[in-house]
């Protein structure tokens, strides 16, 4: 456990080194910090102010020191601290990813279990072919089709923006706001489609395996209805690996939200990232990158720990078995 924690910290440290050398050394930070027509004196002053005149290891230590205090610089465009900006946009992304995850489970799990039950019949095969389309459809294109159909054609749901939010525990969330949920439906569904296919495939494989087990035969012998066997007994047994995979997928949901947020103009941190890239707002890019690393490392760690807790047969690396 301690080893696993140390490993996570090592990953964060390694990423810090990569980010520092990647972003701060390859491009000349002076060029983006001050206007091109600044005088030589001003350039020198800025260099000293930001510590660029120091030798490289001192600069790196300063970067690490600042980062540990949660200071990754100030956004050029917004004039706020980059970390604060990310934190401000983060709840919108997180709630979108969570709702997407819920949709993925609600859509994918029943379909997958049913496909596993009817694996050899046409229903199962049709669902499997459907999941291939789910994998194939590019995220942004699905979003566009949804907008075209539900917003432009039927005019049922709004196409862009976030709508109302309510403040819960100091966070502004749309899910619980009466006018906010309808803004979330399309982006969350778009985000969920790929994961729903993944869940369906996992659930199908698990169900096929579980149906051969003795407890299913026993339940059938007891005369329990097929649907009860499938959605109570089988589901319980296939759930653990699916939950573990989905936990890991939460990270990739947040990453893929970059695309979905851009399509739907959803004001989350993914859209912030794209805007920062187009405006060359480097501190925000760095802050997003470090935040993303932190989130992924945390998710990986939590899932690993949860997994050993749920299934004691799994051992962490390096632990005596």
């Amino acid at each position, binding site marked *: 456990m301690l080893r696993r924690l140390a490993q996570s910290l090592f*990953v964060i440290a*390694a990423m810090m080194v990569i980010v520092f050398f*990647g*972003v701060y050394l*390859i*491009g000349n930070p002076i060029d983006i910090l001050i206007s091109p027509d600044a005088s030589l004196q001003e350039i020198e002053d800025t260099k000293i102010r930001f510590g660029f005149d120091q030798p490289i290891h001192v600069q790196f230590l300063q970067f690490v020191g600042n980062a540990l205090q949660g200071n990754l610089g100030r956004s050029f465009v917004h004039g706020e601290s980059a970390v604060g900006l990310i934190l401000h946009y983060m709840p919108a992304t997180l709630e979108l990813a969570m709702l997407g995850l819920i949709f993925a489970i609600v859509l994918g799990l029943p379909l997958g279990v049913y496909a596993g039950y009817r694996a050899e019949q046409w229903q199962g095969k049709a669902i499997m*072919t459907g999941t*291939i*389309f789910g*994998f*194939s*459809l*590019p*995220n*942004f*294109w699905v979003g*566009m*089709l949804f*907008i*075209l159909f539900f917003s*432009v054609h039927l005019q049922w749901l709004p*196409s862009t923006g976030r709508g109302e939010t309510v403040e819960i525990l100091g966070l502004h969330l749309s899910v619980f706001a009466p006018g906010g949920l309808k803004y979330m439906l399309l982006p969350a569904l778009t985000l969920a489609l790929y994961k729903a296919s993944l869940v369906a*495939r996992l659930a199908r*494989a698990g169900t096929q395996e579980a149906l051969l087990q003795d407890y299913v035969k026993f339940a059938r012998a007891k005369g329990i209805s097929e649907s009860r066997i499938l959605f109570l007994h089988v589901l319980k047994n296939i759930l653990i690996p699916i939950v573990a995979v989905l936990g890991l997928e939460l*990270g*990739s949901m947040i*990453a*893929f939200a*970059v*695309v979905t947020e*851009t399509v739907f103009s959803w004001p989350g941190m993914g859209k912030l*990232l*794209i805007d920062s*890239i*187009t405006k060359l707002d480097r501190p925000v*890019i760095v802050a997003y*990158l470090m935040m*993303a*690393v932190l989130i*992924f*490392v945390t998710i*990986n760690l939590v899932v690993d720990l949860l997994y050993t807790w749920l299934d004691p047969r799994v051992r962490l690396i390096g632990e005596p078995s």
Partner: protein
Amino acid sequence: MMDLLLRCALLALGLWLFARALRGQADLYFSGPMAYISAAVLLVFVCLALFAPEISPQNPYDLAQLNILDGRLAPGSSSLDDAMVYHLGTDDQGRDILSGILYGLRVSLTVSLLTTLLAMTIGVLVGMYAAWKGGKAEAFLMRLVDLQLSFPSILVALMLMASFGRGVDKVVVALVIVQWAYYARTVRGTALAETSKDYIAAARCLGFSDARILLRHLLPNCVPPLLVISTIQVANTIVLESSLSFLGVGVPITNPSLGLLISNGYGYMLSGQYWMSIYPGLALLAIVAAINLVGDRLRDTINPRLKR
């Protein structure tokens, strides 16, 4: 003329590789209508991309052929000088969407095939080296692979493109960096299983050099599982590249892929001019789905036990 011959040769090479991958199990592969449909669709799209200059009604990047007055025409309308009919409409520059799709298909396919080839080469070398060497080198390389795979591909690609800037070559480099790890992990797994087999021991007893054993004996036996992943990875790469281009950090405007075409038309979609993004999107969907379906069937044919 040389160019045309070269493209025909490429097509033949592709067909030969496909036939090799099946290795006489064609009837197992061609079971059910989806197998025929997907293979046919894929073949048609590859031909369209290869022979785009011969097929397409206009060269969308030859500015002399474009007429700005033909901009944003609906599908089926004819050009101002009645010289041609725009079957799928035109974009804001007066470009024929059909021609744009054919040329965009070329960019998308070139980027993804090149990426897959390079990433596979790097991954195979790293994976086989790790499996062969063992010890510290293996532990280090595989940790690196784990680290890389724990980050979503789109995020890593986005970050790389943000620091590289736009460009076809840069997209390829970024995508290779993103994808080599998949191959390295798979090849290492296969190679580990293969190295413990008798034929490797026999080759060692014969005193062959390491390089010869690795390349002549081990490599051919690591290839089948690779074929399956690489097919699916080609499709993934197309989607990834189009997403990057859609976000504006992919291929440059002068060399648009399907993703960039969709992105260009997106602004006009809400005003009802749907054809600029919907048709390139349909082409993208069709080719990606066809590749995925073919990959799925290939996996079932080559190795029924292999699961995604």
